[in-house]
């Protein structure tokens, strides 16, 4: 009986993953990332890839809000910063352990998303983009102003780490696996939301808000839902990253973070959820590993090359890298189908 169950699980898995080339590719990439520590790379790569995974969650959450729902947000670092600072402040003032502070900061992120979602319902298009841009500097100003509570631009240091019980050299691989698991789970949740019925409603808001309103969709509710889900994952990324780096400071509210997430997403393919994850991995590894450790260019050149790559991609392939690959795979699949159908027709013809 157990064997029958296992067989059923395997067949459903095969039907959902193996038969769809893009999902198979995603699984292979995930397995590659899972097995990659077997080659015993230097510890610095673990640090880079851990940060990359966290940023991938952040980029995917942005993609759900902007690529799927069309609520153009240029201040997504706000949620990230809220996640970072809530967990940091709870630790600093109350000394709570991280399995309390991380959920609480995620909750705060959701509440903040709902709170700023309300004014954002009224404005549209470029105004929305510019309004959301205004939120991170407001929070930065408040943090700098109340510096006796938040420690201002010094930041909060010494946050607890996730795995205090493993040895010093095992901490980085452990963090790496943890962040990868987190990315896998959040990526699947976000993808499932984006492809579910709710996701279709969100896409209808992106396509034509008036038409979806006319067909009886409560647009306000769905927009707020998109804000809340996006805020949840962004603040999760922020609070987890604060614990991974042991520090909560103002770089988490930086204007650059809000913009670079846009670059990653457009590079990977906006509106696909898996696109930004791929984009983050490629661009981060290009920036942090290839240009820093292999080519050893001075830092300003990294940003120049990075930006030039992003500009070229946007002009040449505006649909993004992930879409490009999935389109090619679909073409292959179609070709295979035609071939098989041709064989089948040939067989039936011969029988007659």
């Amino acid at each position, binding site marked *: 009986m157990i064997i029958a169950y296992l067989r059923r699980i395997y067949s459903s898995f095969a039907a959902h993953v193996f038969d769809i080339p893009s999902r198979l590719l995603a699984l292979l990439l995930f397995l590659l990332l899972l097995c990659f520590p077997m080659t015993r790379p230097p510890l610095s790569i673990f640090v880079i890839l851990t940060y990359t995974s966290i940023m991938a969650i952040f980029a995917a959450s942005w993609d759900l809000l*902007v690529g799927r729902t069309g609520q*153009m947000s*240029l201040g997504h670092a706000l949620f990230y910063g809220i996640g970072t600072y809530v967990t940091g402040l709870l630790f600093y003032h109350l000394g709570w352990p991280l399995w309390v502070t991380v959920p609480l900061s995620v909750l705060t992120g959701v509440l903040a998303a709902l709170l700023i979602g309300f*004014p954002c319902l*009224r*404005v*549209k*298009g*470029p*105004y929305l*983009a*510019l*309004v959301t*841009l*205004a*939120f991170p*500097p*407001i*929070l*930065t*100003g*408040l943090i*700098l*102003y*109340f510096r*006796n509570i938040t420690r201002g631009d010094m930041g909060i240091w010494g946050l607890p780490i996730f795995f205090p019980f493993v040895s010093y050299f095992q901490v980085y691989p452990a963090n790496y696996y943890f962040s990868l698991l987190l990315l896998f789970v959040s990526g699947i949740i976000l993808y499932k939301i984006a492809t579910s019925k709710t996701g279709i409603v969100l896409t209808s808001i992106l396509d034509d808000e008036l038409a979806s309103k006319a067909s009886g969709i409560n647009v306000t509710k769905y927009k707020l839902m998109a804000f809340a889900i996006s805020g949840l994952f962004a603040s999760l990324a922020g609070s987890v990253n604060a614990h991974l780096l042991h520090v909560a400071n103002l770089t988490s509210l930086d*204007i*650059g973070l809000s*913009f670079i997430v*846009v*670059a990653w997403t*457009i590079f990977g393919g*906006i509106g696909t959820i898996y696109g930004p994850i791929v984009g983050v991995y490629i661009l981060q590894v290009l920036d942090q590993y290839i240009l820093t450790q292999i080519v050893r260019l*001075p830092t*300003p*050149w990294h*940003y*120049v090359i*990075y*930006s*030039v790559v*992003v*500009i070229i991609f*946007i*002009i040449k392939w*505006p649909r993004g890298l992930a879409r490009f690959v999935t389109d090619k795979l679909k073409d292959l699949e179609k070709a295979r189908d035609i071939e098989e159908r041709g064989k089948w027709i040939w067989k039936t013809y011969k029988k007659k």
Partner: protein
Amino acid sequence: MIEAILVYGAISGTMYALLALGFTLIYGVSGVINLAHGSLFMLGTYLFFALTVRSFELWLLPAIILAAFFVAIVGSIVYRVTIHPVVKDQLSVMVVTISLAIIFQQLMILGFTSNRQAVLSLGGELARILGVKELVILWGVKLTYSQILASVVSITLFAILMIFITKTKIGRAMKAISQDREVAMLMGINTERLCMLTMAISASLAAVAGVLIRSIAGVTDPSVWVHPLYMSFAVVILGGLGSIKGSLIGGLIIGYVENTFVFAIDPLIASILNLPKGGTLSGAVIMLTVLLVLLIRPKGLFGKRIELE
């Protein structure tokens, strides 16, 4: 205190308006949200610095004009090469322009290091040439010549631009493009070339604003583009995207709000809460003002168009 608020508010208001002028112009004509506006500002300050300090001494006015001219050329080339292919998609335009901003910043770091560089104080030089004291006292408020110069020049540029747009043929063509791009094209207007020209004007306005504003502070560094970008956003949203009158009024409102906060409210809060006073909250107050205005009028004070299709 009230005199200080009135005078400083007017001066910083006109400066913010000049910052936002170029931003709103390029949005109004070609629908581009140019996030590289702040870096064109920064580029202008660096060119002025290089022309007056590094290589050879020029007269101040030719140096400003030369800096503005170079930035205008850079702006129009950049517009043609990178922004024009994606001009229909606003998100792509934003990403392209922010990438351009990062490229400019990093190139300046490579060329001039990330340290601060001293910008020649225009007002100080003017006072030296005229042989008068550097400080002017207006209603008991101390002002430098740089501040007065910035304010006067920005009002003059506003007037010139208004006349240019309403009276000349090219200006009216720009207005036509902003009203309806396709029809303007059908009427025989070369929209692409005019958008490039608009970008050049917008970039040179940013460069002039950069020289004037940074010569008050007296220093420039490669990260100096972020604050002007935020300020031009705030002004432009408040006044309405694409409206020139709106950017002047929005700039003045923001100048007065900021100075009222800095001179009157901030010391009050600091004395009540027993905190050290500093300007860190003024940015937050400006953004909150913008938010409140947008809640009442979602398209800003004078904004008309919300979509460009």
